[in-house]
């Protein structure tokens, strides 16, 4: 009898613990711009760190008014995955918003004190550190940017360059047509590496292929911000994994709800590094010879070996 009672008590405790765990934190709504793999991974990251008490809305497929819906449900916190999603929840002032996978959140942050988030890019300083570590001879970093789109990034890079004692060689462009000349000009300025910025003016499929071939011809390695561009001829990708960004966003949300941080706050994601050994070999960089570039570096040591066919 005692034994039976003990089993019932144990089962109840288990159920209560898990239930209470579900309701121990405040419920959240995740607004996701579109249903693409990186955003889904970010969502998975949120779930892994924040918990399962989440409601996800896909903006591209949602028929109703997202703002009305959120206000009706009154979640404790809102996650906005992607710039489009952030723009949809921007007018909600009373609920804290954690954005992620937004490249340039600054235009949204000016009037909204309830918005915090995790940056999409690895911090400039971290990027320079990686460059310094794996390409020690790299002193002059070439950058092409459109001030309208990536001026803020350039400023951050300038600050970081000072700290890491590297010089930044920059060219401004205002349309894609200027990119070709800018690439040619910047290559004449004796840059050691070219740092690719996520600027839609600078990066188009056409300029990308030209850039790869041109810099390869000049033996200038390209450092990019996404592992996808390794296949297109970049030497090194310094990036953050969407899953990890999601995890960091979930942790940030919990801290916000616990009142452990003051709003607004923006945190840098953890960085990862991946090198295309074939490009390294063709550029005759020692990075390939000592084998360090053969594996991805960063937080997740289990990442697979890079292959151009991946």
């Amino acid at each position, binding site marked *: 009898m005692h034994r039976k009672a003990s089993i019932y008590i144990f089962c109840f405790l288990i159920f209560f613990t898990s239930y209470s765990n579900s309701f121990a934190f405040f419920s959240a709504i995740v607004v996701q711009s579109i249903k693409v793999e990186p955003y889904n991974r970010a969502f998975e990251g949120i779930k892994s760190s924040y918990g399962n008490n989440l409601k996800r809305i896909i903006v591209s497929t949602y028929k109703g008014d997202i703002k009305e819906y959120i206000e009706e449900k009154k979640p404790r916190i809102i996650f906005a995955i*992607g710039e489009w999603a952030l723009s949809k929840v921007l007018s909600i002032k009373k609920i804290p918003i954690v954005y992620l996978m937004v*490249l340039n959140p600054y235009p949204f942050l000016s009037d909204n004190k309830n918005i915090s988030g995790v940056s999409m890019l690895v911090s400039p300083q971290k990027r320079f550190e990686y460059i310094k570590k794996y390409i020690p001879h790299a002193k002059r970093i070439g950058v092409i940017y459109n001030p309208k789109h990536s001026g803020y990034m350039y400023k951050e890079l300038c600050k970081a360059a000072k700290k890491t004692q590297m010089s930044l060689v920059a060219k401004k462009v205002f349309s*894609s047509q200027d990119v070709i000349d800018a690439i040619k000009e910047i290559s004449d300025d004796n840059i050691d590496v070219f740092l690719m910025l996520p*600027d839609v003016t600078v990066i188009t499929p*056409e300029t990308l292929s030209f850039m790869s071939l041109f810099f390869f011809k000049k033996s200038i390695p390209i450092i990019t911000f*996404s592992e996808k561009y390794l296949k297109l001829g970049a030497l090194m990708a310094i990036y953050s994994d969407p899953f990890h960004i999601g995890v960091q966003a979930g942790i940030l949300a919990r801290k916000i709800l616990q009142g452990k941080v003051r709003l607004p706050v923006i945190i840098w994601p953890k960085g990862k590094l991946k090198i295309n050994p074939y490009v390294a070999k063709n550029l005759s960089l020692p990075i390939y010879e000592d084998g360090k570039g053969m594996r991805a570096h960063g937080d997740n040591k289990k990442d697979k070996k890079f292959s151009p066919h991946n």
Partner: protein
Amino acid sequence: MEIIKKIKNFPLITEIFFQMKDSLFKRVLTTFITIFMSFFLTLFIFYSCQQIYSIKSSFIREGKILIDVLATNSRLGVLAGNEKLLKQEAQGFLCQPYVIGISVFSKDSLLMSVTKHEQNLPRIITIFQINKRLSQGGRPPYIYETDRLMEIWNPVYISIGFKSAEELVLGIMPTKTKLAGWVALSLDKSEISKKEKLYFLYFLITLFICISLAYFFMHRAALRTVGAIDMLCEYVDNFKNIENVEALQEIPMEGEDEAGRVAKLINEMIRVLKKRHEEKKKLETQLLNAQKLEAIGALAGGIAHDFNNVLASVMGSGDIVKYRMSKREEIDPKFVEAIISCSKRAREMIVELLKYARGKGMDRYPLKLNDQIIMLKKMASGFLNDDIEIRLELSEEDPVVVSNATQLHQVLLNMLTNAQDAMPKGGRLRIATGTAEISEDVARSKGEWVNPGKYGVIYIEDTGTGMDEEVMKNIFNPFFTTKGPEKGTGLGLYNCFNIVKEHGGFIDVESVKGKGTFFKIYIPLSDSKEVVVEKEDDSLINIPKGSGTILVADDDPFVREVIKAILTEFGYKVILAVNGIDVINKFRDNKDEVDLVLMDIVMPYKHGKSAQEAIRKIKPGVKIIFMSGYPDYVLAEKGISTDDIEYIQKPVRAATLIKKIQQVLKS
């Protein structure tokens, strides 16, 4: 046969079709070639159409690939409006020999760049028409062409760019594109015609090799197909000269196929022909003999007439001599001379008659035609009717031919006999001699045995009944006669024709019914004008007298007495014997005395040869001379050869006899 030889030497196709006569081989080969050419031409037309289409489509396909690559590579240049970059991209394409120019237009129809080989790059179509076509929904690339030029237009699409920087970071590549401009590739179509020419060159070489090989194999196949028939034809061609049955050969072909069966039949036919030919020859020989007898019969009258004349002279002269001797009057030598001359004439007549009957004397030697005609006239005057007037017209050239007097007389006597038969009521017979030059064409028309050159001609013209065309065509055929079965054998002129043919000559005949017939007998002239004439030395004056005893045996008492008289006159002692046994006995009795035995071969009781054996047993080494009035062939029939003995043919002149005896005694 020339056709088959030509065939085996691989004649040209044109030679077969245009020069060769119709033949089974030609038909089979023509069929093969027609089938082959039909098949080959169909294949060629089909393959050529496909090749020409393929060359052009390959050219277009290459152009499309080039324009596609060019459009892709020009994206950056068009995007950046960078002419240098565009030219740089285009330069690589101009190394293609058929690319003569590359033009790049912006979306706004502005010419951004032209790279070209030629100064004035012709343009088939404008950019505005291209844009219009695109707006109408035409699917690029667009191809326009003239006789010389081909233009391929392809749009330059560039991506619309990343929608957002986030997509850029996430590596979500933009899939949509937008029109940024046009590239136009100008191609020289002469490259197509070059390839077509090259194709046709290769094709012609292949065609030549194929046709040569095909002709070789078809030729072999055709030969194999008709080879047996060719062989048959080759042998059957011998039948052209079917008269020469002995030369016909059996076809060495066995087998049960069609050709084999035909060969068997032909071989059987040849065997039958040969058998019949043998029979015919036998029959001809028999008929020839009959014809000779007929001729001899005809001659007999004439000879009898001459012989009577000769005998009349001999008897008359003898009577005068006898009369004068009985009166002890001086004898006129002309009578003795007449006896001798007439005897000689009689001997010649006998010799000729025997030769004719025996068919001997076939050796040919130069003969003067004029002499022979004169002799013929003498012979003919004996049997020709008196109401036939003979006129001789002998050529002053005095032609000499290589012939045999007997054969020549046989021909001429036949002609004269025919002439006499054609003139039952009498008429004129002209016999003339002359010469003629026979050209090659004439010689060929007269017969394959006739050679061109100079001929001696004997003309025999009568004023008889003549012949019609039908008779003239057949007069030289064996057994053809117009005289009726009892009178003629139909072999007279046939023999004449063959004798003249053996001489290498020929006979022409012209005749008008009711007016007469004109024969021209052509015999090749002798190279030499000299005629061999045997002169008999009949003078006894210079013959020295001899001595010794001679045993003379002959069953004819007149002969015995004449010989005794001659020998005694020349100093010899003569013992006479009357037959074979008598001579043996007389010799035994006088064996030491007799120096020479002169005996007839054919004698009563024992002929000369047996007597000789007996005499030789009595006295080996005794000298013996035989004599006989029989011709050689009669002696041969009796088993007596005159080859290994001393022999005198009777009648013999006294001088000849004495000389022979003296010669044998000295030896």
